[in-house]
């Protein structure tokens, strides 16, 4: 175990507490801060943090052991991640990960003995339009290829500071290929706020209702109802939370909005604050987007200077609203609104029991509106232009942004009217001879080419905006396996059906991949599909078996191939699996047997 000087630990904890505050609810941000000093949250620092924050050691341990980007052991000075998302896989990211590990002489996930570097896979980094992608010390890496990987190895070996790496390695573009109502009309800063100042909160909420706007994060709850319920809920303090924890594999539209349209998003939050009677808002920004933080801080500061944020918005003495950015630490589950609130309160991101819902009992039990980035963005435009303007498109429901990636000529952002058929989006993106599309990410559904007439209506077919195209040569089992592993990795572990079901599903998928799945696995899949989705605590568990269900129901031929000839008399003993642990210890690599 790494030994840190006690004086250094104390100093780091003190500076973290100075920056982020001394209450238990600051624990997550304090842990992040301490980790910046030591590349981990050292075991010896945990009691110090706990005492400083007036909380328990178990609370701090619970955070460090929950969030993917908090570490119990030190990382390398270069902390490299490559995205494990299926579209990055399709662009060769697995091969690149191996090449990087071989080049640097590291085992994935473990720091090199000299402490120089760590390489690890990570869940989708939200850069699927310019993958294979990754992160190095929190900065984005895009368009990786073999040449770049080899150069990365040289840069790390030469201990070249990140500032001296080629700038285009970090370049993140915002490719917008189709603009409709929202993206084609520029909105001068403050237009929405001034429109509200000339009318009333009730009128604004009415406009949102006329607009037919519902939540753009994937659940699709009517925005006007949410704001109204929160406004009418009993309580003296209210909060606005922007869910920028865009973790659904294949989604990146919020990244583009935050990079290019942060003003409109923040304006939407400010409007919400006025509409519900809140003076404080949070942007919960996923750790993978930490590189956007300084830009967002700059926009917030500029808007404060322009009287569009802070005290006396538009010079009105009774209009105060300010926004704080809080960073996540690597947990897909925090995209679920009640888990996000738990995380904001400095806890593990486990979803709450509902009812009560956040609109009546959210951040610290106060009425809270949690909306997606795109929802606030749309709300600002609707405030400025009126509900009818938005409702003119998409059968009275406006437009929706889609993050298109995978096998297509033009990956990027596409704004289409609600109710657009899947096939039209595939065609616009140049997805020639597409075999299938995964709509709404890992938690969504697989649509085969013969289903491309299906429209994304945000009622029966909801979406967070992830749209992944699979070309004619793709093996859809790889997609199933990737998503199933993803859920097993991201399940929070709170409820039994999801925690156990996702692990069991993953073990079946691993046996399928190794050609060792039998009849009892088929039965196990059927039972898991019956149990986990309906009994789980939240949407993660509800969706976790979708990938296996879709493969079973939509690609029966491929599904059947995954099972070996069954024989009830065969003892299902997997020698390789049984020996894997001892082989790991001895360093001996066993031959992979194929069934």
């Amino acid at each position, binding site marked *: 175990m790494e030994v840190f000087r006690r004086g250094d630990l104390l100093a780091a904890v003190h500076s973290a507490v100075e920056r982020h505050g001394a209450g238990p609810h600051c624990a997550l941000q304090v842990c992040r801060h301490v980790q910046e000093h030591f590349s981990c949250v050292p075991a010896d620092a945990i009691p110090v943090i706990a005492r400083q924050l007036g909380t328990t050691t178990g609370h701090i*341990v619970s955070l460090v052991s929950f969030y993917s980007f908090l570490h119990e052991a030190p990382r390398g000075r270069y902390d490299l991640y490559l995205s494990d998302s299926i579209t990055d896989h399709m662009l060769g990211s697995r091969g690149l990960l191996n090449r990087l590990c071989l080049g640097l002489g590291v085992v994935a996930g473990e720091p090199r003995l000299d402490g120089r570097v760590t390489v690890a896979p990570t869940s989708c980094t939200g850069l699927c339009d310019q993958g294979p992608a990754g992160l190095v010390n929190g900065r984005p890496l895009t368009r990786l290829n073999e040449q770049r990987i080899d150069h990365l190895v040289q840069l790390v070996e030469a201990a070249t500071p990140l500032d001296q790496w080629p700038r285009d390695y970090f370049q993140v573009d915002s490719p917008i290929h189709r603009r409709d109502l929202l993206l084609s009309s520029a909105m001068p800063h403050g237009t929405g706020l001034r429109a509200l100042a000339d009318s009333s909160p009730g009128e604004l909420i009415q406009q949102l209702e006329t607009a037919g706007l519902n939540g753009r994060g994937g659940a699709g709850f009517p925005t006007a109802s949410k704001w109204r319920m929160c406004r009418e809920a009993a309580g003296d303090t209210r909060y606005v939370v922007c869910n920028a924890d865009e973790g659904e594999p294949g989604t990146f539209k919020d990244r583009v909005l935050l990079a290019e349209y942060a003003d409109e998003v923040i304006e939407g939050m400010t409007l919400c604050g006025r509409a519900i009677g809140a003076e404080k808002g949070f942007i919960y920004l996923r750790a993978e987007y930490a590189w956007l933080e300084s830009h967002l801080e700059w926009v917030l500061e500029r808007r404060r200077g322009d009287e569009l944020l802070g005290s006396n918005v538009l010079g009105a003495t009774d209009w105060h609203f300010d926004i704080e950015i809080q960073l996540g630490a690597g947990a897909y589950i925090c995209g679920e609104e009640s888990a996000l609130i738990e995380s904001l309160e400095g806890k593990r991101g486990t979803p709450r*029991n509902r009812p009560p819902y956040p609109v009546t009992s959210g951040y610290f039990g106060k009425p809270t509106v949690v909306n997606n980035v795109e929802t606030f963005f749309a709300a600002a435009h609707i405030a400025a232009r009126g509900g009818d303007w938005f409702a003119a498109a998409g059968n009275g429901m406006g437009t929706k942004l889609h993050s298109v990636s995978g096998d297509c000529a033009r990956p990027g952002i596409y704004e289409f009217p609600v109710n657009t058929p899947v096939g039209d989006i595939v065609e616009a993106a140049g997805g020639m001879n597409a075999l299938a599309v995964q709509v709404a990410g890992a938690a969504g559904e697989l649509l085969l080419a013969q289903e491309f007439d299906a429209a994304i209506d945000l009622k029966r077919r909801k979406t967070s905006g992830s749209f992944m195209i699979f070309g004619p040569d793709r093996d859809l089992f790889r997609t199933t396996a990737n998503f199933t592993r993803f859920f097993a990795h991201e399940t929070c572990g709170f*409820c039994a059906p999801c925690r156990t079901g996702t692990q069991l599903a993953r073990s079946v998928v691993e046996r399928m991949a190794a050609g060792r799945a039998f009849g009892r696995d088929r039965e196990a899949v059927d039972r898991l599909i019956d149990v986990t989705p309906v009994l789980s605590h939240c949407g993660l568990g509800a969706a976790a078996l979708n990938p296996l269900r879709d493969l079973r129901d939509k690609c029966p031929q491929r599904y059947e191939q995954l099972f070996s000839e069954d024989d009830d008399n065969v003892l299902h003993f997997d020698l390789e699996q049984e020996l894997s642990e001892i082989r790991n210890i001895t360093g001996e690599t066993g031959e992979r047997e194929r069934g």
Partner: protein
Amino acid sequence: MAETITIDGRDIPFEPGQTIMEAARAAGLYIEHLCYNPQYQPHGSCKLCSVVVDDQMQTACTMPAKAGQQVESASPRMKSRREALTEMIFAEGNHYCPFCTKSGNCDLQALAYHLGMHHNSFNHRYPVREIDASHPDLVLDHDRCIFCGLCVRASRDRDGKNVFAMAGRGKATRLVVNTDSGLLGDSDISQDDAAAHVCPVGAIMPKRGAYTTPIGQRYFDDHAIDEVDNASGKL
């Protein structure tokens, strides 16, 4: 005349503020559960008490009763899901009933019998977990922990000691002890605490005294879990 909800076709009266579980218990109706204990705040994590309330799945232990609710609990499909979920919970940890010192007094084991679970069709995970035997009077055997959080609640809300917390994520979920060392022996838990006795399985057990009760005289040798639940007995 009290207001009522309907569970499996039976009218069940309830007091304002009661959950479906509380109303059912008061009427002598058993709904399967592991993480629920009437003496503590409901947790809603084991999901065994899941019931269909007006076409929506809810946990009976957290869902407030509301007049006119139609609740489906003991239907064949819900029974079969609970049975499968119990198998899944068994497959996740290391539960060695034949030689477990909790055998015969264990809610998980009794529940499995009650649901007619005769074997486990899921592959066992056999996780590697450590035993914490640092406390003079108690042993913390993580192998058997089902993460119900009852000890967390009992220690915090009843004993006022806050000895436990739930940590980790997903398959690495684990019970931790609020001491600098993380060891139970360094905590102020005592064998008289509620938290020392609340575990529905064998994760927190008293030291010494194992196997002293002969088979035939253990708690569930004489009781079924569905009667226990409504009697004043075990809980």
